[in-house]
Protein backbone atom coordinates (compact mmCIF):
# COMPACT_ATOMS: atom_id res chain seq x y z
CA UNK A 1 0.00 0.00 0.00
CA UNK A 2 1.48 3.31 -1.00
CA UNK A 3 -1.22 5.65 0.31
CA UNK A 4 -0.25 7.37 3.53
CA UNK A 5 -3.22 7.55 5.85
CA UNK A 6 -2.86 10.19 8.52
CA UNK A 7 -4.35 9.55 11.94
CA UNK A 8 -7.61 11.45 12.37
CA UNK A 9 -6.05 13.38 15.20
CA UNK A 10 -2.48 13.60 16.47
CA UNK A 11 -1.72 12.39 19.97
CA UNK A 12 -3.15 15.00 22.31
CA UNK A 13 -0.81 14.34 25.20
CA UNK A 14 2.77 13.27 25.81
CA UNK A 15 2.84 9.50 25.68
CA UNK A 16 4.87 7.29 27.94
CA UNK A 17 5.20 3.52 27.79
CA UNK A 18 5.24 3.22 24.03
CA UNK A 19 8.04 0.67 24.48
CA UNK A 20 7.79 -3.00 25.44
CA UNK A 21 6.47 -3.22 28.96
CA UNK A 22 8.09 -6.37 30.38
CA UNK A 23 6.60 -8.81 32.84
CA UNK A 24 3.62 -6.88 34.18
CA UNK A 25 0.03 -7.94 34.68
CA UNK A 26 -2.84 -5.84 33.37
CA UNK A 27 -6.60 -5.91 33.06
CA UNK A 28 -9.29 -5.20 30.53
CA UNK A 29 -10.29 -1.53 30.82
CA UNK A 30 -14.01 -1.11 31.41
CA UNK A 31 -15.49 2.42 31.52
CA UNK A 32 -17.41 1.60 34.73
CA UNK A 33 -14.01 1.34 36.49
CA UNK A 34 -12.69 4.68 35.23
CA UNK A 35 -13.43 6.70 38.38
CA UNK A 36 -11.84 4.06 40.66
CA UNK A 37 -8.75 3.79 38.45
CA UNK A 38 -8.20 7.55 38.24
CA UNK A 39 -8.77 7.99 41.95
CA UNK A 40 -6.13 5.37 42.78
CA UNK A 41 -3.61 7.15 40.54
CA UNK A 42 -0.82 5.63 38.42
CA UNK A 43 -0.05 2.03 39.29
CA UNK A 44 2.07 -0.80 37.96
CA UNK A 45 0.19 -2.62 35.23
CA UNK A 46 -1.40 -1.97 31.88
CA UNK A 47 -4.87 -1.75 30.37
CA UNK A 48 -6.26 -3.49 27.32
CA UNK A 49 -9.15 -2.21 25.24
CA UNK A 50 -11.10 -3.59 22.31
CA UNK A 51 -10.08 -1.35 19.42
CA UNK A 52 -13.59 -1.21 17.91
CA UNK A 53 -15.04 0.53 20.99
CA UNK A 54 -12.78 3.52 20.28
CA UNK A 55 -13.44 3.89 16.57
CA UNK A 56 -16.02 6.65 16.99
CA UNK A 57 -15.02 10.20 16.03
CA UNK A 58 -15.00 11.68 19.54
CA UNK A 59 -16.91 11.95 22.79
CA UNK A 60 -16.55 10.27 26.20
CA UNK A 61 -14.84 7.04 25.00
CA UNK A 62 -11.78 8.91 23.74
CA UNK A 63 -11.73 11.13 26.81
CA UNK A 64 -11.65 8.01 29.02
CA UNK A 65 -8.97 6.32 26.94
CA UNK A 66 -6.79 9.44 26.96
CA UNK A 67 -7.10 9.62 30.74
CA UNK A 68 -6.08 5.97 31.11
CA UNK A 69 -3.30 6.20 28.55
CA UNK A 70 -1.74 9.27 30.18
CA UNK A 71 -0.44 7.21 33.10
CA UNK A 72 -0.45 3.61 31.92
CA UNK A 73 0.76 1.44 29.06
CA UNK A 74 -2.01 0.37 26.72
CA UNK A 75 -2.73 -2.81 24.81
CA UNK A 76 -4.92 -2.41 21.73
CA UNK A 77 -6.83 -5.60 21.05
CA UNK A 78 -8.67 -5.83 17.73
CA UNK A 79 -11.73 -8.06 17.64
CA UNK A 80 -13.26 -7.56 14.20
CA UNK A 81 -10.52 -7.53 11.54
CA UNK A 82 -11.66 -10.92 10.24
CA UNK A 83 -8.06 -11.97 9.58
CA UNK A 84 -9.09 -15.62 9.32
CA UNK A 85 -11.84 -15.01 6.75
CA UNK A 86 -11.50 -15.59 3.01
CA UNK A 87 -12.70 -12.11 2.05
CA UNK A 88 -10.30 -9.21 1.49
CA UNK A 89 -9.75 -7.11 4.62
CA UNK A 90 -12.10 -4.15 5.06
CA UNK A 91 -9.85 -1.24 4.02
CA UNK A 92 -11.86 1.33 5.99
CA UNK A 93 -11.60 -0.80 9.12
CA UNK A 94 -7.87 -1.25 8.61
CA UNK A 95 -7.47 2.54 8.29
CA UNK A 96 -9.39 3.06 11.54
CA UNK A 97 -7.21 0.49 13.30
CA UNK A 98 -4.10 2.19 12.00
CA UNK A 99 -5.32 5.59 13.22
CA UNK A 100 -5.85 4.25 16.73
CA UNK A 101 -2.35 2.77 16.81
CA UNK A 102 -0.92 6.12 15.67
CA UNK A 103 -2.97 8.14 18.14
CA UNK A 104 -2.55 6.06 21.31
CA UNK A 105 0.84 4.41 20.64
CA UNK A 106 -0.02 1.19 22.45
CA UNK A 107 2.69 -1.02 23.91
CA UNK A 108 0.93 -4.08 22.50
CA UNK A 109 -1.27 -4.54 19.40
CA UNK A 110 -3.12 -7.79 18.80
CA UNK A 111 -5.84 -9.48 16.75
CA UNK A 112 -7.43 -12.93 16.48
CA UNK A 113 -6.97 -16.02 14.38
CA UNK A 114 -10.67 -15.97 13.52
CA UNK A 115 -13.22 -14.32 11.26
CA UNK A 116 -16.40 -12.38 11.94
CA UNK A 117 -17.61 -10.91 8.65
CA UNK A 118 -18.95 -12.72 5.60
CA UNK A 119 -20.31 -10.96 2.54
CA UNK A 120 -22.10 -7.95 4.07
CA UNK A 121 -22.92 -9.43 7.48
CA UNK A 122 -20.93 -8.81 10.64
CA UNK A 123 -21.55 -11.66 13.09
CA UNK A 124 -19.86 -10.21 16.20
CA UNK A 125 -18.24 -13.51 17.14
CA UNK A 126 -14.82 -15.07 16.68
CA UNK A 127 -15.59 -17.80 14.15
CA UNK A 128 -13.30 -20.75 13.40
CA UNK A 129 -11.44 -21.68 10.20
CA UNK A 130 -10.02 -24.87 8.74
CA UNK A 131 -6.25 -25.24 8.89
CA UNK A 132 -5.13 -25.85 5.30
CA UNK A 133 -2.39 -24.55 2.97
CA UNK A 134 -5.02 -22.30 1.34
CA UNK A 135 -6.23 -20.70 4.58
CA UNK A 136 -2.62 -20.37 5.74
CA UNK A 137 -1.74 -18.34 2.63
CA UNK A 138 -4.82 -16.17 3.11
CA UNK A 139 -4.16 -15.51 6.82
CA UNK A 140 -0.51 -14.65 6.10
CA UNK A 141 -1.56 -12.23 3.37
CA UNK A 142 -4.01 -10.52 5.74
CA UNK A 143 -1.42 -10.23 8.52
CA UNK A 144 1.10 -8.77 6.04
CA UNK A 145 -1.48 -6.09 5.19
CA UNK A 146 -2.16 -5.28 8.83
CA UNK A 147 1.53 -5.10 9.72
CA UNK A 148 2.23 -2.90 6.72
CA UNK A 149 -0.59 -0.57 7.77
CA UNK A 150 0.39 -0.27 11.43
CA UNK A 151 4.13 -0.43 10.69
CA UNK A 152 4.88 -2.82 13.54
CA UNK A 153 4.45 -6.50 14.30
CA UNK A 154 1.00 -7.71 15.23
CA UNK A 155 0.40 -10.27 17.97
CA UNK A 156 -1.94 -13.03 16.78
CA UNK A 157 -4.13 -14.77 19.36
CA UNK A 158 -4.86 -18.51 19.35
CA UNK A 159 -8.62 -19.15 19.28
CA UNK A 160 -11.01 -21.06 21.49
CA UNK A 161 -13.16 -23.33 19.32
CA UNK A 162 -16.16 -25.63 19.64
CA UNK A 163 -16.08 -27.42 16.27
CA UNK A 164 -13.38 -28.69 13.93
CA UNK A 165 -13.43 -28.61 10.12
CA UNK A 166 -13.45 -31.91 8.27
CA UNK A 167 -10.90 -30.65 5.77
CA UNK A 168 -8.35 -29.29 8.27
CA UNK A 169 -4.99 -30.70 7.22
CA UNK A 170 -2.73 -29.53 10.04
CA UNK A 171 -2.74 -29.01 13.77
CA UNK A 172 -3.54 -25.54 15.10
CA UNK A 173 -0.05 -25.22 16.60
CA UNK A 174 1.51 -26.16 13.26
CA UNK A 175 -0.63 -23.54 11.51
CA UNK A 176 0.24 -20.82 14.03
CA UNK A 177 3.94 -21.66 13.86
CA UNK A 178 3.85 -21.32 10.06
CA UNK A 179 2.00 -17.98 10.30
CA UNK A 180 4.54 -16.50 12.70
CA UNK A 181 7.48 -17.77 10.63
CA UNK A 182 6.12 -16.47 7.34
CA UNK A 183 4.84 -13.07 8.52
CA UNK A 184 7.18 -12.28 11.42
CA UNK A 185 4.17 -11.59 13.63
CA UNK A 186 4.32 -12.20 17.37
CA UNK A 187 1.83 -14.28 19.31
CA UNK A 188 -0.69 -13.64 22.02
CA UNK A 189 -1.10 -16.91 23.90
CA UNK A 190 -4.54 -17.16 25.49
CA UNK A 191 -4.04 -19.90 28.08
CA UNK A 192 -7.76 -20.14 28.79
CA UNK A 193 -8.38 -20.68 25.07
CA UNK A 194 -5.84 -23.51 25.10
CA UNK A 195 -7.64 -25.13 28.04
CA UNK A 196 -11.10 -24.61 26.51
CA UNK A 197 -10.12 -25.97 23.08
CA UNK A 198 -8.16 -28.90 24.53
CA UNK A 199 -11.19 -29.92 26.60
CA UNK A 200 -13.60 -29.42 23.70
CA UNK A 201 -11.51 -31.37 21.20
CA UNK A 202 -10.20 -34.04 23.55
CA UNK A 203 -6.48 -33.34 23.35
CA UNK A 204 -3.93 -32.50 26.02
CA UNK A 205 -3.38 -28.82 26.82
CA UNK A 206 0.21 -29.67 27.82
CA UNK A 207 0.86 -31.30 24.45
CA UNK A 208 -0.55 -28.21 22.73
CA UNK A 209 1.73 -25.95 24.77
CA UNK A 210 4.75 -28.20 24.11
CA UNK A 211 4.09 -27.78 20.38
CA UNK A 212 3.33 -24.02 20.56
CA UNK A 213 6.09 -21.59 19.44
CA UNK A 214 6.47 -20.09 22.94
CA UNK A 215 9.50 -17.98 22.02
CA UNK A 216 7.22 -15.84 19.81
CA UNK A 217 4.75 -15.16 22.63
CA UNK A 218 4.75 -11.51 23.70
CA UNK A 219 1.48 -11.36 25.62
CA UNK A 220 -0.65 -13.81 27.56
CA UNK A 221 -4.40 -13.74 28.18
CA UNK A 222 -6.12 -15.33 31.14
CA UNK A 223 -9.90 -15.45 31.50
CA UNK A 224 -12.79 -17.37 32.99
CA UNK A 225 -14.88 -19.94 31.14
CA UNK A 226 -18.31 -21.52 31.55
CA UNK A 227 -19.47 -25.15 31.32
CA UNK A 228 -22.04 -26.68 28.96
CA UNK A 229 -22.52 -30.09 27.38
CA UNK A 230 -22.03 -31.31 23.80
CA UNK A 231 -24.38 -33.61 21.82
CA UNK A 232 -23.05 -36.65 23.65
CA UNK A 233 -23.52 -35.03 27.07
CA UNK A 234 -19.77 -34.53 27.56
CA UNK A 235 -18.27 -31.35 28.95
CA UNK A 236 -18.12 -28.46 26.48
CA UNK A 237 -16.31 -25.34 27.74
CA UNK A 238 -17.43 -21.88 26.64
CA UNK A 239 -14.94 -19.03 26.44
CA UNK A 240 -17.25 -16.67 28.33
CA UNK A 241 -14.87 -14.11 29.95
CA UNK A 242 -17.45 -13.69 32.71
CA UNK A 243 -15.72 -14.93 35.83
CA UNK A 244 -12.45 -15.63 37.64
CA UNK A 245 -9.64 -17.62 36.01
CA UNK A 246 -10.03 -21.37 36.68
CA UNK A 247 -7.48 -23.18 38.87
CA UNK A 248 -6.44 -25.45 36.00
CA UNK A 249 -5.74 -22.39 33.83
CA UNK A 250 -3.59 -20.82 36.57
CA UNK A 251 -1.58 -24.10 36.67
CA UNK A 252 -1.03 -24.02 32.90
CA UNK A 253 -0.07 -20.36 33.16
CA UNK A 254 2.64 -21.11 35.74
CA UNK A 255 4.03 -23.79 33.45
CA UNK A 256 4.06 -21.36 30.50
CA UNK A 257 5.86 -18.68 32.53
CA UNK A 258 8.45 -21.19 33.76
CA UNK A 259 9.19 -22.13 30.15
CA UNK A 260 8.79 -18.77 28.43
CA UNK A 261 9.83 -16.33 31.17
CA UNK A 262 7.77 -13.33 32.26
CA UNK A 263 5.64 -11.66 29.54
CA UNK A 264 2.84 -9.08 29.88
CA UNK A 265 -0.25 -10.90 31.10
CA UNK A 266 -3.83 -9.74 30.85
CA UNK A 267 -6.84 -10.69 32.92
CA UNK A 268 -9.73 -10.55 30.43
CA UNK A 269 -13.17 -9.98 31.90
CA UNK A 270 -15.82 -8.82 29.44
CA UNK A 271 -19.22 -9.63 30.89
CA UNK A 272 -20.73 -9.82 34.37
CA UNK A 273 -17.99 -7.29 35.08
CA UNK A 274 -17.02 -7.25 38.77
CA UNK A 275 -16.07 -4.29 40.95
CA UNK A 276 -12.62 -2.93 40.25
CA UNK A 277 -10.95 -4.46 43.37
CA UNK A 278 -12.00 -7.96 42.25
CA UNK A 279 -10.47 -7.51 38.80
CA UNK A 280 -7.39 -5.93 40.36
CA UNK A 281 -6.96 -8.94 42.67
CA UNK A 282 -6.91 -11.32 39.68
CA UNK A 283 -4.17 -9.18 38.10
CA UNK A 284 -2.25 -9.20 41.39
CA UNK A 285 -2.33 -13.01 41.37
CA UNK A 286 -0.82 -13.05 37.86
CA UNK A 287 1.73 -10.42 38.90
CA UNK A 288 2.85 -12.61 41.82
CA UNK A 289 3.57 -15.47 39.41
CA UNK A 290 5.45 -13.13 37.07
CA UNK A 291 7.48 -11.63 39.93
CA UNK A 292 8.36 -15.04 41.33
CA UNK A 293 9.69 -16.04 37.92
CA UNK A 294 11.67 -12.83 37.50
CA UNK A 295 13.19 -13.25 40.97
CA UNK A 296 14.18 -16.81 40.04
CA UNK A 297 15.83 -15.59 36.85
CA UNK A 298 17.76 -12.89 38.72
CA UNK A 299 18.85 -15.44 41.31
CA UNK A 300 20.22 -17.54 38.46
CA UNK A 301 17.92 -20.43 39.18
CA UNK A 302 16.53 -20.38 35.69
CA UNK A 303 17.00 -18.67 32.34
CA UNK A 304 14.07 -17.21 30.51
CA UNK A 305 13.44 -18.65 27.06
Amino acid sequence: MSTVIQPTRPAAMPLRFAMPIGGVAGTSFKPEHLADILEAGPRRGFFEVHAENYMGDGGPPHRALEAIRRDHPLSLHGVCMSIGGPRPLDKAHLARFRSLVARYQPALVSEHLAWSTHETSFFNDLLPLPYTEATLACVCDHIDQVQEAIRRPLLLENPSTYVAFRDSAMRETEFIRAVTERTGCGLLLDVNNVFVSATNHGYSALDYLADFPLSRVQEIHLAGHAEQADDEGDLLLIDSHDGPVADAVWKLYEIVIQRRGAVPTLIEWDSKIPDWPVLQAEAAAAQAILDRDQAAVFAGERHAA
Partner: protein
Amino acid sequence: MLPEPSLPFAAAFAPALLDPARSTPSVVTGPNGKAAGRRYDVYRNNVTVSLIDALAAVYPAVQRITGPEFFRAMARFHVRSHPPTSPLLFEYGRDFPAFIEAYEHAQDMPWLADVARIERAWLDAYHAADAAPLSPARLSAVTPDHLADLVFVPHPAARCLRSQYAAVTIFAANRDGAPLPRIDASTPEDALITRPAFDVTVHRLPPGGAVFADGLISGLSLGEAAASALDAAAGFDIAANIAGLIEAGTFISLACGDPS
Protein backbone atom coordinates in the same frame (compact mmCIF):
# COMPACT_ATOMS: atom_id res chain seq x y z
CA MET B 1 -19.58 -7.48 -5.86
CA LEU B 2 -16.37 -9.01 -4.64
CA PRO B 3 -15.03 -11.99 -6.58
CA GLU B 4 -16.10 -15.40 -5.27
CA PRO B 5 -13.65 -16.51 -2.63
CA SER B 6 -11.53 -19.52 -3.45
CA LEU B 7 -12.11 -20.70 0.12
CA PRO B 8 -15.69 -21.90 0.53
CA PHE B 9 -15.61 -22.61 4.30
CA ALA B 10 -17.11 -19.27 5.37
CA ALA B 11 -19.91 -19.51 2.81
CA ALA B 12 -20.72 -22.96 4.20
CA PHE B 13 -20.41 -21.93 7.87
CA ALA B 14 -22.17 -18.55 7.90
CA PRO B 15 -25.76 -18.97 6.61
CA ALA B 16 -27.07 -21.09 9.51
CA LEU B 17 -25.69 -18.70 12.16
CA LEU B 18 -28.82 -16.53 12.05
CA ASP B 19 -31.22 -19.04 10.54
CA PRO B 20 -32.45 -21.70 13.00
CA ALA B 21 -34.26 -23.52 10.18
CA ARG B 22 -30.94 -24.49 8.58
CA SER B 23 -29.12 -27.56 9.79
CA THR B 24 -25.57 -27.69 11.13
CA PRO B 25 -23.11 -27.08 8.27
CA SER B 26 -21.64 -30.34 7.01
CA VAL B 27 -18.12 -28.87 6.87
CA VAL B 28 -17.82 -29.00 10.67
CA THR B 29 -17.56 -31.90 13.08
CA GLY B 30 -16.87 -32.76 16.69
CA PRO B 31 -13.66 -34.62 17.61
CA ASN B 32 -13.33 -38.36 16.94
CA GLY B 33 -16.54 -38.56 14.98
CA LYS B 34 -18.66 -36.77 17.61
CA ALA B 35 -21.63 -34.73 16.42
CA ALA B 36 -21.32 -30.98 15.90
CA GLY B 37 -24.93 -29.85 16.48
CA ARG B 38 -24.74 -28.44 20.00
CA ARG B 39 -21.19 -27.31 19.32
CA TYR B 40 -22.26 -25.25 16.29
CA ASP B 41 -25.18 -23.95 18.36
CA VAL B 42 -22.65 -22.22 20.63
CA TYR B 43 -21.77 -19.97 17.67
CA ARG B 44 -25.44 -19.46 16.81
CA ASN B 45 -26.10 -18.45 20.39
CA ASN B 46 -23.05 -16.17 20.64
CA VAL B 47 -24.01 -14.35 17.44
CA THR B 48 -27.71 -13.95 18.21
CA VAL B 49 -27.41 -13.08 21.89
CA SER B 50 -24.51 -10.66 21.40
CA LEU B 51 -26.40 -8.80 18.67
CA ILE B 52 -29.57 -8.63 20.77
CA ASP B 53 -27.38 -7.29 23.60
CA ALA B 54 -25.98 -4.73 21.17
CA LEU B 55 -29.50 -3.48 20.36
CA ALA B 56 -30.35 -3.41 24.08
CA ALA B 57 -27.28 -1.24 24.66
CA VAL B 58 -28.39 1.23 21.96
CA TYR B 59 -32.07 1.25 23.06
CA PRO B 60 -32.23 1.03 26.89
CA ALA B 61 -35.38 3.17 27.21
CA VAL B 62 -37.23 1.02 24.65
CA GLN B 63 -36.24 -2.05 26.65
CA ARG B 64 -37.37 -0.47 29.92
CA ILE B 65 -40.73 0.39 28.36
CA THR B 66 -41.39 -3.03 26.83
CA GLY B 67 -39.65 -5.14 29.47
CA PRO B 68 -36.68 -7.38 28.61
CA GLU B 69 -38.72 -10.37 27.41
CA PHE B 70 -40.74 -8.38 24.85
CA PHE B 71 -37.65 -6.42 23.81
CA ARG B 72 -35.47 -9.49 23.26
CA ALA B 73 -38.15 -11.28 21.24
CA MET B 74 -38.59 -8.21 19.04
CA ALA B 75 -34.82 -7.69 18.76
CA ARG B 76 -34.30 -11.36 17.82
CA PHE B 77 -36.53 -10.93 14.76
CA HIS B 78 -34.62 -7.80 13.81
CA VAL B 79 -31.17 -9.34 14.33
CA ARG B 80 -32.09 -12.27 12.09
CA SER B 81 -33.52 -10.12 9.29
CA HIS B 82 -31.11 -7.18 9.59
CA PRO B 83 -27.69 -8.30 10.88
CA PRO B 84 -25.11 -5.52 11.20
CA THR B 85 -23.06 -4.56 8.17
CA SER B 86 -20.38 -2.69 10.13
CA PRO B 87 -18.03 -4.15 12.75
CA LEU B 88 -18.70 -1.04 14.84
CA LEU B 89 -21.62 -2.11 17.01
CA PHE B 90 -22.40 1.45 18.14
CA GLU B 91 -23.46 1.99 14.52
CA TYR B 92 -25.89 -0.94 14.66
CA GLY B 93 -29.68 -0.67 14.66
CA ARG B 94 -30.29 2.38 12.46
CA ASP B 95 -33.25 0.59 10.90
CA PHE B 96 -34.59 -0.69 14.25
CA PRO B 97 -36.99 2.28 14.81
CA ALA B 98 -38.67 1.59 11.44
CA PHE B 99 -38.81 -2.11 12.38
CA ILE B 100 -40.51 -1.22 15.68
CA GLU B 101 -43.00 0.98 13.82
CA ALA B 102 -44.05 -2.02 11.70
CA TYR B 103 -43.77 -4.63 14.47
CA GLU B 104 -47.15 -6.28 14.95
CA HIS B 105 -46.95 -6.56 18.73
CA ALA B 106 -45.89 -2.91 19.25
CA GLN B 107 -48.88 -1.33 17.52
CA ASP B 108 -50.44 -0.23 20.83
CA MET B 109 -47.29 1.82 21.54
CA PRO B 110 -47.28 4.11 18.48
CA TRP B 111 -44.75 6.43 20.17
CA LEU B 112 -42.18 3.66 20.73
CA ALA B 113 -40.44 4.10 17.36
CA ASP B 114 -39.90 7.82 18.02
CA VAL B 115 -38.43 7.07 21.46
CA ALA B 116 -36.06 4.67 19.64
CA ARG B 117 -35.16 7.42 17.14
CA ILE B 118 -34.18 9.71 20.01
CA GLU B 119 -32.05 6.93 21.53
CA ARG B 120 -30.30 6.30 18.19
CA ALA B 121 -29.60 10.06 17.84
CA TRP B 122 -28.40 10.14 21.46
CA LEU B 123 -25.74 7.49 20.68
CA ASP B 124 -24.70 9.24 17.46
CA ALA B 125 -24.24 12.45 19.44
CA TYR B 126 -22.25 10.52 22.07
CA HIS B 127 -19.72 9.31 19.48
CA ALA B 128 -19.71 12.45 17.30
CA ALA B 129 -16.50 14.42 16.79
CA ASP B 130 -15.46 16.83 19.53
CA ALA B 131 -15.91 20.53 18.74
CA ALA B 132 -16.10 23.72 20.81
CA PRO B 133 -19.61 25.21 20.61
CA LEU B 134 -20.25 28.72 19.31
CA SER B 135 -19.95 31.34 22.03
CA PRO B 136 -23.12 33.44 22.55
CA ALA B 137 -20.88 36.53 22.43
CA ARG B 138 -20.22 35.90 18.73
CA LEU B 139 -23.86 36.51 17.90
CA SER B 140 -24.07 39.69 19.99
CA ALA B 141 -21.16 41.06 17.94
CA VAL B 142 -23.08 40.81 14.67
CA THR B 143 -24.57 44.10 13.47
CA PRO B 144 -28.40 44.03 13.13
CA ASP B 145 -28.41 44.48 9.34
CA HIS B 146 -26.32 41.28 8.95
CA LEU B 147 -28.45 39.11 11.24
CA ALA B 148 -30.91 37.81 8.63
CA ASP B 149 -28.06 36.58 6.40
CA LEU B 150 -26.26 34.62 9.11
CA VAL B 151 -25.61 30.94 8.42
CA PHE B 152 -24.60 28.63 11.27
CA VAL B 153 -22.23 25.67 11.09
CA PRO B 154 -23.84 22.85 13.10
CA HIS B 155 -22.00 20.94 15.80
CA PRO B 156 -21.22 17.36 14.66
CA ALA B 157 -23.39 16.08 17.54
CA ALA B 158 -26.45 18.27 16.88
CA ARG B 159 -29.65 16.56 15.73
CA CYS B 160 -33.31 17.50 15.63
CA LEU B 161 -36.23 15.05 15.69
CA ARG B 162 -39.98 15.63 15.47
CA SER B 163 -42.68 13.43 16.96
CA GLN B 164 -46.47 13.40 16.96
CA TYR B 165 -46.20 11.93 20.45
CA ALA B 166 -44.63 12.89 23.77
CA ALA B 167 -41.46 11.06 22.73
CA VAL B 168 -39.05 13.36 24.58
CA THR B 169 -40.87 13.06 27.90
CA ILE B 170 -41.21 9.28 27.51
CA PHE B 171 -37.51 8.98 26.55
CA ALA B 172 -36.36 11.09 29.52
CA ALA B 173 -38.59 9.29 32.01
CA ASN B 174 -37.27 5.90 30.89
CA ARG B 175 -33.57 6.78 30.75
CA ASP B 176 -33.06 8.09 34.27
CA GLY B 177 -34.32 5.01 36.12
CA ALA B 178 -36.59 7.04 38.40
CA PRO B 179 -40.21 6.02 39.06
CA LEU B 180 -42.33 6.76 36.01
CA PRO B 181 -44.71 9.73 36.08
CA ARG B 182 -48.07 9.62 34.28
CA ILE B 183 -47.49 10.86 30.75
CA ASP B 184 -50.01 12.03 28.17
CA ALA B 185 -48.45 10.35 25.15
CA SER B 186 -50.60 12.24 22.65
CA THR B 187 -48.85 15.62 23.11
CA PRO B 188 -46.56 16.20 20.08
CA GLU B 189 -42.95 16.89 21.09
CA ASP B 190 -39.82 17.79 19.16
CA ALA B 191 -36.30 16.98 20.35
CA LEU B 192 -32.98 18.75 20.05
CA ILE B 193 -30.02 16.48 20.80
CA THR B 194 -26.64 18.10 21.46
CA ARG B 195 -23.32 17.35 23.10
CA PRO B 196 -21.56 20.68 23.71
CA ALA B 197 -18.73 19.05 25.71
CA PHE B 198 -19.03 15.42 26.80
CA ASP B 199 -22.57 15.04 28.11
CA VAL B 200 -25.32 14.40 25.59
CA THR B 201 -28.39 16.53 26.29
CA VAL B 202 -31.91 16.06 24.93
CA HIS B 203 -34.03 19.24 24.95
CA ARG B 204 -37.72 19.62 24.21
CA LEU B 205 -38.25 22.36 21.65
CA PRO B 206 -41.10 24.91 21.81
CA PRO B 207 -43.67 25.12 18.94
CA GLY B 208 -41.90 26.16 15.73
CA GLY B 209 -38.55 25.39 17.34
CA ALA B 210 -37.94 22.21 15.35
CA VAL B 211 -38.65 23.87 12.00
CA PHE B 212 -36.26 26.65 13.04
CA ALA B 213 -33.50 24.34 14.32
CA ASP B 214 -33.86 21.95 11.36
CA GLY B 215 -33.58 24.87 8.96
CA LEU B 216 -30.46 26.28 10.61
CA ILE B 217 -28.80 22.85 10.96
CA SER B 218 -29.43 22.17 7.27
CA GLY B 219 -27.88 25.53 6.26
CA LEU B 220 -30.76 27.98 5.85
CA SER B 221 -29.95 31.57 6.78
CA LEU B 222 -31.30 32.94 10.06
CA GLY B 223 -33.84 35.01 8.10
CA GLU B 224 -35.09 32.01 6.07
CA ALA B 225 -35.27 29.71 9.11
CA ALA B 226 -37.13 32.35 11.13
CA ALA B 227 -39.68 32.87 8.33
CA SER B 228 -40.47 29.16 8.14
CA ALA B 229 -40.72 28.96 11.96
CA LEU B 230 -43.17 31.87 11.99
CA ASP B 231 -45.21 30.06 9.31
CA ALA B 232 -45.31 26.98 11.52
CA ALA B 233 -46.06 28.80 14.79
CA ALA B 234 -47.47 32.30 14.93
CA GLY B 235 -45.84 34.29 17.72
CA PHE B 236 -42.59 32.29 17.41
CA ASP B 237 -39.92 34.03 19.55
CA ILE B 238 -36.86 34.27 17.30
CA ALA B 239 -34.53 35.86 19.87
CA ALA B 240 -35.32 33.36 22.62
CA ASN B 241 -35.04 30.40 20.23
CA ILE B 242 -31.70 31.36 18.69
CA ALA B 243 -30.31 32.07 22.15
CA GLY B 244 -31.58 28.67 23.33
CA LEU B 245 -30.03 26.82 20.39
CA ILE B 246 -26.66 28.50 20.89
CA GLU B 247 -26.79 27.88 24.65
CA ALA B 248 -27.49 24.19 23.98
CA GLY B 249 -24.36 23.88 21.82
CA THR B 250 -26.12 23.37 18.48
CA PHE B 251 -23.54 25.28 16.44
CA ILE B 252 -19.79 25.68 16.27
CA SER B 253 -19.38 28.79 14.13
CA LEU B 254 -20.99 31.39 11.90
CA ALA B 255 -20.40 30.88 8.20
CA CYS B 256 -21.48 34.17 6.71
CA GLY B 257 -21.86 37.74 7.95
CA ASP B 258 -19.53 36.88 10.83
CA PRO B 259 -17.70 40.10 11.76
CA SER B 260 -14.58 38.23 12.88
